[in-house]
């Protein structure tokens, strides 16, 4: 049973560029959440998708956007990259109408030069 998978594992970009990160949820899960984890910090909630719509959003600017596809996979897009966007981006999935906890992928490490 495949868990949450994310791609790519590592990405290097320069300031001002745009990036797209991808996530496939654990089998049977329909809800995907994205988190940003800066070095030495706990993950911070970016937003959550289910039924192909953004349902909750954390305190992140509009440069951060996302999408969920009919197969429940998801993308995180970040425009106009800043040095401060360097972080580990984590995807978590769960089954919405349940008490199941969120399971995380291993993340995409994004470095901005």
């Amino acid at each position, binding site marked *: 049973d495949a868990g*949450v998978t994310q791609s790519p594992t590592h990405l290097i970009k320069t300031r001002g560029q745009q990036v797209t990160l991808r996530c496939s949820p654990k089998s049977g899960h329909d*809800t995907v*959440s994205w*988190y940003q984890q800066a070095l*030495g*910090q*706990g*993950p*911070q*909630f970016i937003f*959550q998708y*289910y039924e192909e719509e953004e*349902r*909750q959003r*954390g305190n992140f600017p509009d440069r951060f956007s996302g999408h969920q596809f009919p197969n429940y996979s998801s993308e995180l897009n970040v425009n106009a990259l800043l040095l401060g966007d360097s972080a580990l981006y*984590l995807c*978590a999935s*769960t089954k*919405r*109408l*349940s*008490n199941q*906890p*969120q*399971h*995380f*992928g*291993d*993340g995409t*490490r994004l470095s901005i030069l």
Partner: protein
Amino acid sequence: QKEVEQDPGPLSVPEGAIVSLNCTYSNSAFQYFMWYRQYSRKGPELLMYTYSSGNKEDGRFTAQVDKSSKYISLFIRDSQPSDSATYLCAMKGGGSPRGLIQGAQKLVFGQGTRLTINP
């Protein structure tokens, strides 16, 4: 003030010791409490998942929740070098009166405690 406070450590103990990790929080709406373990260059791995106050035991791990004090703990008995990792506490609000999560609530994390078990 952060919603969830966690001592970042680092914490270093000898193999076999009992480890106590703690978090405090300010939001009384939190109902579900989790502990995740995160190895270097990996994502958080769920260790314990508890609802409301009380204790839960799983092997060498025990989670305690005291909602009246807004305080949660994770105890690790007979600690092993393989337990060396960063431990993250996380919590979220409750769901509908039926107990189902109507839309998975966002997780709020502590900063994480870096733990090293020395052989």
